[in-house]
C-alpha cells in the first residue's frame, strides 16, 4: 500500500474551517435580525444597495473572474431584467415574482446571441465589443416606444397588494429581506459553482484556453455557458431594482456606470474569488453612498475623485483585492512542504 497516496486520498476534498463557517453563520443571523432593531430608512437602503451590488458584482465575477472574459457591457442584462419585470407587470399584470424569470430567460437568450459571435474575440477586443453592446441597448431602449422610449416605465402603484406586486410603500424592510434572500441564494449557488466540475473547467478556460482545449474542454461553449450564467444572475437584480424604485428609464438601468461599478467592486474585493464581490460591495457601496452625501451635490464630482483615489490605492498596493488581507490558510488548502 502506498502510504502517501492513501493519506492524500483520505484527506477531505475541501478545507473546511469550522471557525469561518461559524462566523458566516453568525453574520447571516445578524443580517436577518438587524432590521428588527429599528434600522432607519437610510441604513435599510444602504444594505439593500450592498446586497444588490454584491450580487451584480458576483454576476460579473462569474464571467470575468471564473472564465476570464472582461465584459464592459454587463449593465445590459440589468436593464433587460428591469424592463422585463416592469413591462410584463404593467402590460399583462404578471406578478414580478414570475416576470423575474422572464427577465432571466430573456437575458440568457441575449447572452447566447451576443456570446456566440463576441466570445470568439478575446482580451481587449471582447471588452470593447461588450462595451458597445451595452451602449447600444441603451440607445435602442431610448427609442423604443413600446417600453416608453426615453421616458421609461412608471410602475403602477398597488399598495393594497404589496407582496404579490413586490412593492412596499410603508417600509423598506420587506425589500431588505427580499434582496438579502436573493443575495444569499446567489452566493450559495456561485459557491457551489466554484466547487463543481463546471467551475474547474471555467478556471481552466480562464488560465489557459489552449491547455483547456487539450483537456477536451470546448472553450467557446464554456465561455458562453459562463456568460449565460452571469447574465441570469444579473437580470433579477434589475427586476428587483425596478420594483424598488418603481420607475425605470434607459439612462438609469442601461447606464454604462452599472457595468463599470460591478467591475470596480469585484476588482476591489478580489476577482475570481466567491468572497471578493461581498467584500468589495460591503466597502465600496458605503463609501459611494457617504461620499455622495458629504462630498457630492454642489461639490461636483468630488465624491467620484475620492472614490477613484481609493481604487487607485487598492490597485497599486493590493492588486489581488482586499481578499488578499485574509490569511491564506483560511482561503486555500494548507500546503505540505
Amino acid at each position, binding site marked *: 500500500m*502506498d502510504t*502517501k*497516496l492513501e493519506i*492524500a*486520498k483520505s484527506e477531505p*476534498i475541501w478545507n473546511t474551517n469550522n471557525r469561518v463557517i461559524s462566523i458566516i453563520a453568525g453574520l447571516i443571523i445578524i443580517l436577518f435580525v438587524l432590521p428588527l432593531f429599528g434600522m432607519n430608512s437610510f441604513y435599510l437602503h444602504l444594505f439593500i444597495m450592498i446586497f444588490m451590488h454584491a450580487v451584480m458584482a458576483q454576476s460579473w465575477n462569474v464571467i470575468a473572474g471564473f472564465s476570464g472574459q472582461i465584459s464592459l457591457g454587463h449593465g445590459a442584462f440589468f436593464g433587460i431584467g428591469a424592463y422585463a419585470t416592469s413591462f410584463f407587470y404593467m402590460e399583462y399584470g404578471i406578478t414580478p415574482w414570475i416576470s423575474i424569470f422572464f427577465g432571466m430567460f430573456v437575458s440568457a437568450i441575449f447572452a447566447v446571441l451576443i456570446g456566440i459571435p463576441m466570445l470568439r474575440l478575446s482580451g481587449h477586443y471582447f471588452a470593447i465589443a461588450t462595451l458597445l453592446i451595452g451602449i447600444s441597448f441603451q440607445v435602442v431602449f431610448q427609442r423604443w416606444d413600446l417600453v416608453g422610449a426615453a421616458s421609461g416605465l412608471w410602475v403602477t402603484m398597488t399598495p393594497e397588494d404589496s407582496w404579490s406586486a413586490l412593492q412596499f410603500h410603508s417600509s423598506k424592510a420587506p425589500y431588505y429581506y427580499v434582496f438579502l434572500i436573493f443575495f444569499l441564494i446567489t452566493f450559495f449557488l456561485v459557491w457551489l459553482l466554484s*466547487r*463543481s*466540475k463546471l467551475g*474547474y*473547467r471555467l*478556471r*481552466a478556460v480562464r*488560465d*489557459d484556453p*489552449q*491547455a*483547456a*482545449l*487539450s*483537456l*477536451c*474542454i*470546448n*472553450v467557446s461553449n464554456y465561455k458562453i455557458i459562463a456568460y449565460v450564467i452571469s447574465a441570469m444572475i444579473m437580470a433579477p437584480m434589475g427586476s428587483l431594482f425596478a420594483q424598488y424604485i418603481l420607475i425605470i428609464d434607459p439612462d438609469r438601468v442601461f447606464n454604462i456606470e452599472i457595468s463599470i461599478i460591478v467591475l470596480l467592486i469585484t476588482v476591489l474585493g478580489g476577482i*475570481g474569488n466567491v468572497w471578493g464581490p461581498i467584500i468589495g460591495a460591503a466597502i465600496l457601496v458605503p463609501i459611494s453612498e457617504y461620499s455622495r452625501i458629504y462630498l457630492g451635490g454642489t461639490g461636483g464630482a468630488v465624491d467620484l475623485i475620492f472614490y477613484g483615489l481609493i481604487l487607485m490605492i487598492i490597485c497599486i498596493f493590493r492588486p489581488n483585492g482586499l481578499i488578499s488581507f485574509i490569511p491564506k490558510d483560511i482561503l*486555500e*488548502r*494548507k*500546503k*505540505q512542504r
Partner: protein
Amino acid sequence: MKILTVENLSKSFGGIHANKDISFDVEEGSILGVIGPNGAGKSTLFDLITGFTKPDAGKVKFFDKNIFGISPDKISNLGVGRTFQKLKPFADQTLLENVMIGAFVKEKDIKRARDRALEIIDFVDLIEKRHHFAKELSTGQRKRLEMARAMAIDPKLLLMDEVTGGVDQKTIPGLVELVKKLKKTGVTIITIEHNINIIMEISDNVLALDQGKRIAFGEPKEIQNNKQVIDAYLGTFDAA
C-alpha cells in the same frame, strides 16, 4: 495495429512550408521520437495532429477515424493527449486542481476525479507537491504536471513536446525514466526531443524532419547513421 497514420500532411504560413508532405505511422504501444533542428516543423506537426493548427492538405487517421482538421477538444476527447513546448500549467491553481481538470473527462464525481488525479500525481512522483500552486513548481516539476494532466484524460496516444527541454542535467534522467514508465502503461507516445542520446534510448522509431520535410523515418540505429540526418544536425562542409 496502427494508432496513427499521417499521409502527405502539409501546412504553409505565407510562403513558408512549415510542414510539407509528411507521412508516417505509429504502432500502438510504441514510442516515436521526432527530431530535427530548430524550425524543422516538429511543433507544427504536433499542432496539426492535435487540431491546434488547421492543416492545408493531407490525411490524419487516429485508429480508423479521420481527425484531419477536427477541433482540439474533439481530438483530445478521442484519446489524444498532449503537452506543450512552452509549458501551459494553470498557474493559479494547485497541482491537484490542474490534474483534476483532466480527470473530469473520465470521472464525473468530484471525489473520484480527485482520487484519480492523486493516483496520477503519485505516478509522476509529485504527491507531496499536490497542494502547491503550479506557479510555485520548478520547470521539471511543471513538465511532470503537464504529463500528469495529459494522462488524466486517459489518452491512447500522448504527444510530448520536449520533455527534457529547459531543465537541468540532474532532472533529465528522472524525466526519461518517467517516459519509460509511461510506455509500460500501454500508452503510445510521440515525443519531440533535441537530445539525440535520449531519443535513441527510448524510441522504437524515429522521424527526422528538416525545413518542414521528412528526411528520414525508421529505427533509431538507421536514423543515427543516416547521412541526411547527420547533415541536418551538423551541416555539410563544402570541399574547397
